[in-house]
C-alpha cells in the first residue's frame, strides 16, 4: 500500500511565514491569555505540592497532630493534593476551551496558503 509521505517538505511554510504568525497580534494575545492561566496555576501547584515534603520533613510534630480521630494532618494534607490536582485539571480544561477558540480565530486570520486546510493532504 502506497501512502503519501507524512510531512512533505515542499508543502512546509518558510521561516518568514512562521515569523509573521508569531508576531501577529492574535498569536501574542493567545500566548498572553495562556500565560495568565498557566503560570499562576503552575507556581501555585508547585508551592502547594513541595510544602508537603517540606512540612513532613521539618515540622513533623504539626504533621503528626490529629485532625479527627487518629487521622493525622499529614494524611489529610496528602489527600488534599489529589483534590488540588483534580481541581487544577478541571479549571485548565475550562480555560483551554478559550485557548482553542483563540487558535481557531488565529488560524482563520493567518492561514498559510499551502496549509489553510490541514487535511488538504488528501
Amino acid at each position, binding site marked *: 500500500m502506497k501512502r503519501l509521505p507524512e510531512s512533505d517538505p515542499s508543502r512546509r511554510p518558510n521561516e518568514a511565514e512562521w515569523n509573521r504568525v508569531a508576531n501577529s497580534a492574535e498569536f501574542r494575545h493567545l500566548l498572553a491569555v495562556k500565560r495568565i492561566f498557566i503560570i499562576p496555576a503552575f507556581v501555585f501547584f508547585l508551592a502547594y505540592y*513541595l510544602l508537603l515534603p517540606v512540612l513532613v520533613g521539618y515540622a513533623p510534630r504539626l504533621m503528626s497532630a490529629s485532625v479527627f*480521630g*487518629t487521622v493525622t494532618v499529614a494524611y489529610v494534607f496528602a489527600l488534599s493534593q489529589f483534590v488540588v490536582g*483534580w481541581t*487544577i485539571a478541571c479549571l485548565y480544561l475550562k480555560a*483551554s476551551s478559550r485557548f482553542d477558540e483563540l487558535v481557531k480565530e488565529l*488560524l482563520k486570520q493567518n492561514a498559510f496558503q499551502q*496549509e489553510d486546510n*490541514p487535511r488538504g493532504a488528501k
Partner: protein
Amino acid sequence: MPISLLVFLVFVATTLGITYWAAKRSRGASAYFAAGRQITAWQNGFAVAGDFMSGAAFLGIVGLIALQGFDGFLYSVGGFIAYVTILLLIAEPLRNAGKYTMGDVLAYRLRPRPVRAMAALSTMTIVTGYMIAQMVGAGALVKLLAGSGISYNIAVAGFGVLMMIYVVFGGMLATTWVQIVKAALLLTCTIVMVVLVLAHFGFSLGTFFAAASHVTFHQQGQLVVMDFLRPGLRYKPPHGSLDLISLSLALLFGTAGLPHILMRFYTVPDAKTARESVVWAMVLIGSFFVMTSIVGLGAATVVGPDYIVTRGGTNMAGPLLARALGGEVLLGTVGAVAFATILAVVAGLTISGSTSFAHDFWVNVIHRGVEQNSDETVLVARIAALGVGAISILLAIALGPNSNAGILATLAMAVAASANFPVILLSIFWRRFNTAGAVAGLSVGLLASIGLILISPTFMGLDSSNGPAIARHLFQAKAMFPLENPGILSVPLGFLAAIMGTLVTSEPSSESKFNELMVRANTGLGAEQSISH
C-alpha cells in the same frame, strides 16, 4: 488448574487477540509507532494510566505503605501530582511539535544528530532502569506463587516472548489496547481489595484508621507499636528530610520525562485530545493512588509487617493481603493481574525504547534524517524490540527480587527528571536554548543521576552479617552520597548544565527557528495528522 494461571491465560488470550487484530490493521510507520494517531481521549487516558500504574506501583508502593506507613504514601502523591506538570506544560506542545519521540521536539531547532543520539541514549537508559524495577516485582511474585508450579526462569522467558509478540507484531496499537485492558483490570482488582479491607473493619473508617495508628511489629528484635498515619517511619534524621524533598523532585519532574509516557501523546489525533487524555489519566491514576493507601494500610493492619517481611518481602504486601482477605482465589487473581500489569508495562517500555532506537538513532543519526523507506524503519524497530526483549529477559534472570520495586522505579524517574525534563522544558520555552545546552544537559543529567545512585545507600553500604534477610549491597563501602534519591542534586545539575552549555555557545539558527516551534506548539499548525484506513 490454579486460579492465577486461569486468570492470566484469559488475559494472555485476550491480548493476543488484540495483537492479531492490530497487526492486520497496522501499515506503515505512523501506524506502527503511533497507532495511526487515532486513539481517543478516554482510550489514551486509560493507556497512560496503564503505563503508569505499573507493577512497581502496585506491588512496590503498597509494600512501602504496608511497612512504613504514611511515608510510603508520599510516593503515591508525587506520582499523581506529576501529571499536573504534564498537563500544563508538556502534553500539548509535545503532540503539536513532535512525531514519535521526545527527540523530535528537541531536533526541531537544534542540530539533530548530536541531540538525537543523546536523546536515544537517555531514553534507552531510563527504559532499561524502569524495566529492571518491573522485573524485580515479577520475580518476587513468582516466588510467592511458586505453588502454581511455574519456575522463575520459565515465567520470565514466557513473559519476554509474550511482550515481544505484542510489540513486534502489534506495534503501538496493540500495546495501547493491552494497556487499556490491563488498566481496567488493575483498577477493578484494587477496588475489590479496598472494599474487602473496609469490610474487614465493618465498613467503619474510624475502626480502620484506629487500627492503622496501632501497628505492632518487630524492629531490631524488639516488639514495637507504631502509628502508621504519622510521618517519619521511613524518612528519619539526619538526612530523611532532604531525601524526601529529593524524592518529591524526582517524582514531580521524572514522570514528565518518562519516554513511554511521553510517547503516548503521539497516538492521539491532536493536542486537544492529548489534553483531555491527561485529565482522564489523572482521574484514573489519582483514584488508584488514593486507594493504594487503603490497601497498604490494610496490609499493615490485617496481615502485619512481620508476616510480610518473612513471607515474601516488601513487594508482596498486596498479594499477601489478598490471600488473607479472599483466600487462594483472590491471591491467584491479584497475582495474575499483577503479572498482566508488569507484562503490559514492559511492552510499553519496549516499544518506546525500540522507537527511539529506530527513529532517533537509525533514521536520524545513522541515515542523517533521510528515511529511505518507512518499512525499513519499522523493521529496525521490530529488531530493536527483539533486542530489548532479549536483554531484559537476561537481566531479569540475572537479577533477583532483592529490593523494593517502587524505589527502583523512582530511581529511573530521577534519571528522567535530571536528563530529559530540563532539556524538554528549555527547548519548548527558552528562545536562547541551543544544541550545546541540550547535549550538556542530557549528558550531565544522565551521569550525575546514575553516578549518585551508584554511590547512594541503595547500592553502596556495609552489610552486617546479622541483619534481616535483605540483599547485599553492590559496593561494600560506606555510602558516599547520603541520600537514597539523587533528585535534589542531579535535577539542578541537569538544568545548570543545559543553561551553561547554552550560554557559552551561540547558535543563531536555533533562535531563529524558535518562532516556528512556538507557533506549532501553541496552535497545532503543521502538526502530524492522524491517518485513516
